[in-house]
């Protein structure tokens, strides 16, 4: 049987043990989108591949296309993101971002933009001063790239241009509603303050360097979080598996910061 071997790079998103010593590994690659392939013998202690195929690792891989599931023939780490793997808080964020990205990537379709965004944000996780705003940056940019850009300029129902102010965000129409439309639609909406709307617009249009310089965004981020997670749930039609863990770690981190401050 002739094998067609593809060489690409990718970010490992997850692995599932299968059989005696194998794993099925999922990766996001720029050239062929989502890759789901088996890594034979990768669970054996002396495996040449095992240590490279860990989630949230950037790798160079060779994949052989077979009649059934593709097979990983070679793998080499490009970046292991060590700092993330040694910090539970960063790891919870990185797991969430990779799972989210994976949901928007298809098999055998080029996904350069999503791959680059994920790579940029995972790299920044290790150095960014404000992790919460980085995650929002990732979510908002990802939605824009995949055709779900939140509409923040005009009413997403009637198209009326919105003057500065506080508006309701509709999860169904994916944007703000003018006061008239908001009166008609009551379900699945969340209120956004003027400053939160400004911040979302700013994130949509700017690069992370500029966004990272913003101060005192904490309260706004909590408000934006409610809108983004609600909108994301309505796009994906499911709750992400990493979300409960993400919330648990965020809560614990918040508690430990509060208790340190009160001491």
């Amino acid at each position: 049987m002739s094998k067609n071997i593809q060489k690409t790079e990718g970010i490992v998103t997850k692995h599932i043990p299968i059989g005696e010593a194998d794993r099925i590994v999922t990766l996001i690659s720029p050239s062929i989108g989502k890759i789901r392939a088996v890594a034979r013998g990768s669970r054996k202690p002396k495996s040449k591949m095992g240590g490279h195929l860990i989630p949230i690792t950037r790798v160079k891989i060779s994949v052989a296309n077979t009649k059934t599931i593709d097979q990983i023939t070679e793998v080499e780490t490009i970046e292991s993101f060590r700092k993330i793997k040694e910090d539970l808080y960063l790891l919870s964020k990185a797991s969430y971002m990779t799972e989210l990205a994976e949901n928007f990537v298809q098999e055998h379709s080029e996904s350069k933009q999503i791959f680059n965004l994920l790579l940029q944000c995972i790299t920044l996780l290790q150095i960014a001063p404000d992790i919460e705003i980085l995650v929002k940056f990732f979510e908002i940019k990802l939605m824009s790239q995949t055709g779900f850009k939140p509409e923040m300029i005009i009413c997403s129902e009637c198209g009326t241009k919105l003057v500065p102010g506080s508006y309701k965000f509709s999860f169904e129409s994916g944007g703000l509603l003018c006061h008239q439309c908001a009166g008609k639609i009551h379900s699945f909406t969340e209120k956004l303050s003027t400053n939160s709307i400004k911040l979302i617009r700013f994130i949509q249009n700017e690069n992370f360097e500029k966004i990272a310089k913003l101060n005192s965004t904490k309260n706004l981020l909590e408000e934006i979080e409610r809108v983004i997670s609600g909108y994301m749930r309505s796009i994906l039609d499911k709750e992400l598996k990493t979300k409960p863990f993400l919330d648990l770690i965020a809560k614990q981190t918040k508690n430990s910061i509060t208790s340190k401050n009160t001491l």
Partner: protein
Amino acid sequence: MANHQSTSKSITNLIEQFSKLPGIGPKSAQRLTYYMVKASKEQAFDLSHAISELKEKILSCSECFNITEQSPCEICSSSSRDTSIICVVEQPIDVIHIERTGVFNGLYHVLNGVISPINGIGPENLKITEFFQRIFSLQIKEVILATNPSMEGEVTSMYINNFLSEKKIKTSVLARGLPIGSDLEYTDDLTLVKALEGRKLLD
């Protein structure tokens, strides 16, 4: 697919049962079934008795959650074990492997899984709360985290360690590094870093 007329119902039934077992495909299930047809009656009864006895007698230890025939298990109720040190493992099978080395004489705690955010498994699905309660009642001095060096194992270790460090309990993890007989050339960066960090002075 219609059953072959010459195949009896009890044979198809056993093939079906065998093929439900992990690592056994339809061909192996067939081979095992036809082996059992040829095997003595005694052998067949011994096998079925062993399986039903396993389900009747095996239970989970109320202390460490290892699989056992009595609760608390032999290790937990033994007076010769060091009760000030506890080793946390993912699965009951890990206890067997560590016991085989003969170098550890403390207690165990089986988590029955690992935290795996990507699969939606959180600390609440494991025996972590029970572990925290246990270390206080036993007045444990040292905890050895012996989860696998996979991402999920590391997440679990970090989660437990976050709690233990607040309570000022000495916590250690198994050494990370190169497996004996492996090849430096094919080792990933992270393992090499861990191996260098954990290097040992030669006597």
